[in-house]
């Protein structure tokens, strides 16, 4: 496991959220809300194109935090605010750094920006100042439920 310490910068994560990804996410979450899949429906709602479900960015933040912290960690809490839409086909960059480590837990502060895929310059912020808490020494999970 990566040795987390305040100031440690997690490797950035680049991801393009294309139509296939959005369709897969819709199926995986049983959410076929038309503004996430259909450009015309999204425009009628006031958007420029089909928009990425804002909660999907939460899942990506969790993946970024766990990947950056190394194997064996677990996300225990998250707070994120969606500041602008991400449109189908756009590239995002997730960045973050560790801000606190105490009592077996670490806090990661993260941002998500839409970036130009060629220049990789920031276009706009999609999430700013997200906080993800990870447990660096998770307890053993006992088996539950019917086998």
């Amino acid at each position, binding site marked *: 496991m990566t040795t987390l310490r305040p100031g440690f910068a997690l490797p950035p994560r680049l991801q393009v959220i294309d139509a296939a990804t959005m369709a897969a996410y819709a199926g995986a979450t049983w959410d076929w809300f038309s503004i996430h899949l259909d450009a015309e429906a999204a425009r009628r709602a006031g958007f420029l194109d089909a928009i990425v479900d804002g909660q999907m960015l*939460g899942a990506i933040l969790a993946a970024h935090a766990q990947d950056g912290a190394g194997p064996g960690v677990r996300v225990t809490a998250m707070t994120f605010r969606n500041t602008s839409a991400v449109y189908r086909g756009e590239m995002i960059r997730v960045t973050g750094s560790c801000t606190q480590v105490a009592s077996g837990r670490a806090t990661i502060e993260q941002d998500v920006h839409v970036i130009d895929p060629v220049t990789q310059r920031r276009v706009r912020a999609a999430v700013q100042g997200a906080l993800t808490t990870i447990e660096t020494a998770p307890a053993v999970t006992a088996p539950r439920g019917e086998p």
Partner: protein
Amino acid sequence: MHLEPQELAACIGLVSTYTAPEPIGEASFRYFAQAVGDRNPVYLDHAAATAAGHATVIAPPTLVCETNQLTDRRPDANGYVGHRWPIIPADATWIRGGNDYRFGRPVQPHDRITVEWQLVRAENRTTRDGRDVVMLVSEGTYTDQRGDLLAWNRETLFLADPPEA
């Protein structure tokens, strides 16, 4: 969008509860992980999960808060199958404000999940660019068939008038 203060006040405390018709299942873990591009092996591989201290594969952490699998509802005219508070006008534009999550023990394939949603805040607001919106804050508590806590989710949504045609 602007709703009457009495109407907003009257809906504070509304509760809706959904129990999934079946256990959440391993396939849902793999589907979600594939969709978001999360390759953590503890969601997919039993050997990796047990090596990490789990009894079995576990769910990607945010899946339980994101999935509508639990509701067993039919899609509406917009393809939406999740929970909708009665106060929300049918033609409102929904804008996600954000979420706060707290996770209990990891979700496992045999968990049959119940979510109880409560509407905790409903207010008329004006955005920085002068747009009138309604802010709704809801809290969802997710438990397994034994009542063990799996997750808690505070969700902020903003409702706006649809753009003029």
